[in-house]
């Protein structure tokens, strides 16, 4: 199979990735890491059981363009309370995504999406998300934020 990395643009595109709270589901981020890496991003994978502060520290240190939070075990809502405040207080203005199994039990995803958008995430992904989908979305989102080059807007 041929791989077609989507060119993420010229500026450094560092992505911080991790599983929040005390969640230890690592397989998803392992796959995500590989996909973002193959697409040309610089990926800082913090692994599982990452605290809000660790996300903030890493984002600051690496001047991350995006922070990608994963949660599978059903406690995402509690774990993400105040997440964006933590980022803001460290002056981080990165694009934030969250994805995985975000609710306990058999929930309706639209409700879940609304909950996490209200918490401040730019995009919310369910666990059926294809890695390509996430890579494409981030590529688009980051391009639109790049003022120096003129680009045609890609409709989302």
């Amino acid at each position: 199979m041929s791989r077609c990395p989507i060119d993420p643009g010229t500026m450094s595109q560092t992505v911080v990735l991790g599983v929040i709270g005390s969640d230890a589901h690592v397989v998803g981020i392992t796959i995500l890491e590989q996909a973002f890496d193959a697409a040309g991003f610089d990926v800082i994978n913090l692994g599982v059981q990452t605290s809000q502060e660790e996300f903030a520290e890493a984002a600051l240190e690496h001047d991350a363009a995006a922070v990608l939070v994963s949660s599978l075990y059903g406690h995402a809502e509690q774990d993400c309370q105040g997440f964006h405040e933590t980022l803001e207080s460290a002056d981080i203005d990165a694009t934030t995504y969250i994805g995985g199994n975000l609710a306990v039990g058999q929930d309706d995803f639209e409700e879940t999406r609304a909950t996490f958008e209200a918490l401040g995430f730019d995009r919310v992904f369910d666990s059926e998300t294809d890695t390509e989908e996430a890579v494409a979305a981030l590529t688009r989102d980051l391009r639109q934020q790049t003022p120096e080059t003129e680009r045609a807007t890609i409709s989302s």
Partner: protein
Amino acid sequence: MIRDERISADELRRIDDEIRSNWSTGDAVDFEEAIDYHESLPPKKRFADVLESADKPLLQPRAGVPRLDDQVELLEYLHGEGKADLLPTTIDSYTRDNEYEKAQEGLEKARDTGEDTLNGFPAVNHGVEGCRELIDAIDAPIEVRHGTPDARLLAAITFAGGFQSFEGGPISYNIPYTKRHGLEETIEKWQFVDRIAGAYTERGVRINREPFGPLTGTLVPPSIAIAIMLVEGKLAATQGVRSITLGYGQVGNIVQDVAALNALKKLGNEYLPDEVVVTTVFHEWMGGFPPDEARANGVISLGGMTASIAQPDKVITKSPQEFQGVPTKEANSAGLRTTRQVIDMAIEQQIDIDGIEEEQDLIERETRCLMDTIFEHGDGDVVQGTIQAFDSGALDVPFAPSDSAAGAVLPARDDDGRVRIFEWADLAMDDDIKEIHKARLSQRADTEGRDQSFRMVADDVDAISDGKLIGRPQGGA
């Protein structure tokens, strides 16, 4: 230096006192009174006896909700409608982190709102009395299932609360479940858990212990899982446990799964002391499920089919809603009944598949390599050997999130769908065995006309949820 030795009576008492003060409900634990309580339980609630005397695979689901009355209702339903033989009580994630305060908040919120704000039953918070209410209410044996690195208080309370089976172990509840706990630390803590189980056992209350075989649930090569089962079984036996159920998670290739269960049973009996009664448990596919209940039922049935051939003592069933989240009780029962139907229709059939002995032989040889390296690393001591072998990477688990494991070994399926090792890293394995894996994997690479790479591993990780066993390139082969 921690070694594979029995905790002394004094030490046991000291730790017991210490951990019981970690949360208010610890006070209520009284060993002598607990023995009386266990003795009062009818035979059908005695986990070890029920499991060991069964003449066909017993079925057990996973299930845990925060509130006691809901848990009673849930287990009654799974027993009545799902016809589960053995019942579980799955513990919430805060308790697993020993965050009893947060668990308490979650429990109170659950009581106030009626919503399941925890992903399991906070047994420590419910305390001895709460546990016994559950044991009294349910007409079948119940096991504690969790994923707790430091499960000492949980064990003290649930054993006193009448539970007679306890899942986990120092490796199997460390490596797949947590990032920062050292192995030395979890081994020490689990020696205590096993020691209390042993103490009950000595008084005639045989607590069943079940190391968690599936590990990360994701393409774990059988020999790695089996070696870890043998280590945990040995550690438990040293502390006086006499009923040990070794676990294994389905990889989806019938020949390899049957061979692995056979090897698990055989090596379990060989490596564990004679006085231990060894049983086996087969977990239906523990990796990513299809996002479709109908297809999930197919995955579950393939597990049932495998169980009917291998005939483990117990099967842990999945529900068709596995992909989505914690299943409804109806879906959980459905998983049980689908499994039951397949097993009951197939179990009386003589199904002898070619190649099982050969695969079993390979698994046994691999497992012996790993056990040998453990003994060598520890100079005969299995505790030290395990710690050192993980440290050197001679022992490793694929997709391990833990800092205690290299997590450098990478599995991939061969052309027949059997899980082989693609990246050995420092795993201790004889060269001729490595050659066998290599040949099998290059056969697959040939079929697919592509190189072996992480891409193949990633495709295999997604394959079952995408509807296949092997992650072939799309539109290819």
